[in-house]
């Protein structure tokens, strides 16, 4: 059974206008997203800014209200929307944020930061709590003396690991990582990515990995969904997406990845030129008159793309 299943998720934000600030329009941040993540897998959500990838992640963890659709966790409705009722899955889903500088409260000690979720969900004595925090910090490779320090005393990579320690404190099943390394230096990035893979094996975690960096997505993920303006344009296994992209938008996105081989520059430029021409020429075939993607059509068991069918035109 899938660990997480999202069915036709829609998140619309109201736009207020006029003298009385009435709702005059709605922004369709997420407009009909379906995705399934198997336990132990890493699912990559890719898109440019404004594509709705972060909103999707935040809706899954209950930070954004859902307009319509269903989120099933282990086959059961997750139930964020119900009033006065705390979802029993609250513990099972945690989030790692983009900016390790602003996501940790600067006035709190590491002990308090990491133990915060424990205090919310588990009744522990202070001694037990301290021991648990030390264990968690050891798991993320920080020494146990660090518990009395403050966030500013750590480097970016260390802070991100503190964020991870906080996220794994309640032994979650699913971690939503929203651009977890994009504010870090390349070598520190490598450290955090390696570490995320290590704890995934160790704790049998499932990741929803949100990023705009296709190199990192390719490195980390088993399955990939590509979003554009709130809708999916293509989804499939990493291999299918990178080696056999079907949607013109995916092709254009992949073509934009910088190539590490400088001797291929001229060739790459010509390829890009071709893809751009194709994109401009065939845009109206791949997108509807509002510039939005069509519904996904299955191409194989795992691969589907928003290509209009012949009959549907």
């Amino acid at each position: 059974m899938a660990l997480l299943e999202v069915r036709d998720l829609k998140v619309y934000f109201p736009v207020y206008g006029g003298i009385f600030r009435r709702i005059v329009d709605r922004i369709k941040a997420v407009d009909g997203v379906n995705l399934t993540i198997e336990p132990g897998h890493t699912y990559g959500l890719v898109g440019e800014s404004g594509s709705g990838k972060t909103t999707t992640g935040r809706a899954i963890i209950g930070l954004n209200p859902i307009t319509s659709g269903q989120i099933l966790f282990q086959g059961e409705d997750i139930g964020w929307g119900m009033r006065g009722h705390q979802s029993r899955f609250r513990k099972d889903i945690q989030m790692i944020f983009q900016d390790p500088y602003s996501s940790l409260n600067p006035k709190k000690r590491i002990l308090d930061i990491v133990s915060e979720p424990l205090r919310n969900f588990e009744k522990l004595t202070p001694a037990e709590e301290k021991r648990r925090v030390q264990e968690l910090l050891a798991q993320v490779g920080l020494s146990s003396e660090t518990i009395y320090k403050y966030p500013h005393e750590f480097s970016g990579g260390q802070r991100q690991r503190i964020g991870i320690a906080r996220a794994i404190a309640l032994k979650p099943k699913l971690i939503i990582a929203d651009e977890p390394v994009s504010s870090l230096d390349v070598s520190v990035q490598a450290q955090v990515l390696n570490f995320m893979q290590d704890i995934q094996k160790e704790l049998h975690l499932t990741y929803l990995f949100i990023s705009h960096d296709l190199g990192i997505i390719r490195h980390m993920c088993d399955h990939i969904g590509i979003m554009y303006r709130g809708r999916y344009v293509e989804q499939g296994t990493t291999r299918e997406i990178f080696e056999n992209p079907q949607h013109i938008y995916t092709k254009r996105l992949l073509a934009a990845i910088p190539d590490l081989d400088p001797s291929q520059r001229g060739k790459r430029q010509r390829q890009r030129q071709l893809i751009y021409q194709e994109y401009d020429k065939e845009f109206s075939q791949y997108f509807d008159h509002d510039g939005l993607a069509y519904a996904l059509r299955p191409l194989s068991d795992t691969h589907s793309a928003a290509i209009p069918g012949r009959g549907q035109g």
Partner: protein
Amino acid sequence: MNEELLTIENLSTSFPIAGQLYAAVDDVNLTVKKNEILAIVGESGSGKSALAFSIMGLHTRAQIQGHIYYKGQNLATMSPAELNRLRGNEVSMIFQDPLSALNPLMMIGEQIEEVLLLHESKSKTARSSKGSGQTRHSKKFRKEQTLDLLSQVGIPRPEYTYGQYPHELSGGMRQRVVIAMAIANQPHLLIADEPTTALDVTIQLQILELIRRLKEQMEAGIILITHDLGVVAEMADRVAVMYAGQIVEISSIHSLMSNAKHPYTRSLMSSIPTGNEKKTKLHVIQGVVPSLQHLPRQGCRFRSRIPWIEEAAHEADPQMHEVEPGHYVRCTCYKHFHFLDE
């Protein structure tokens, strides 16, 4: 003719911290030629931005030693007034974060016009050589130029954007405005400090292509500062790798990407996730980049991060060694370097 546009000799830029001076840029030597892109690569704390700011004279508290020759004139010893005649005119800069680099209360048009206005006399001579009869100080002419610049950098509706404010534009559009400002007076030397870091990949590519096209049109020398080796591989003619305030390796792009020598360069390259889908481990450099106060000032600065390499492999006072024509590496440790798992 292989014109050297910029020659930096023994440049050190030091900052006072608690009454003591610490060099963020330490004894840097490099040259930039006309119609060339020199990339400076390094992580945060490497001193790459401090180097760019030193060239532009933007440091207010730093002490600068050494020479920065731009067409034979030493920028390091110029008076602010002399510097202001060059800045924004012959030498200009593109900043990393296009939102904070623009004045939030000024219209886009005003901000671009300002740089034209400040260097009016130059555009006047340029104009008279073209034989145009337009009057100097003409507001109308500046506006025309601004609209022209906006369309040059690929802004779809220049007339409309002219009257917009920075917060009304997307990140990519803002960066185009910043670029329009930087190229307004057709600079000979352009410094781009992480110009695409804040942008999406497809926008990044558009901006990089724009910079490349402008280089070809203006035959300018460009210093491209970045932490992204992919951007370097796409853009640079030559590359300087900086670590802890020093250049550790400098070479042509082809020689560097195919034959990197310095342990830091090699480590950096193997820490990038590349195409392999097998989830192999990425390379991690041990330890952390030391802060400015704690930089090792003697011996090889990268030594503490490759402790498995024996001490004898390092030079006492690391020098640049030419390993191939035009390819220099600091310290002798590169000869003995291997990754820990090799």
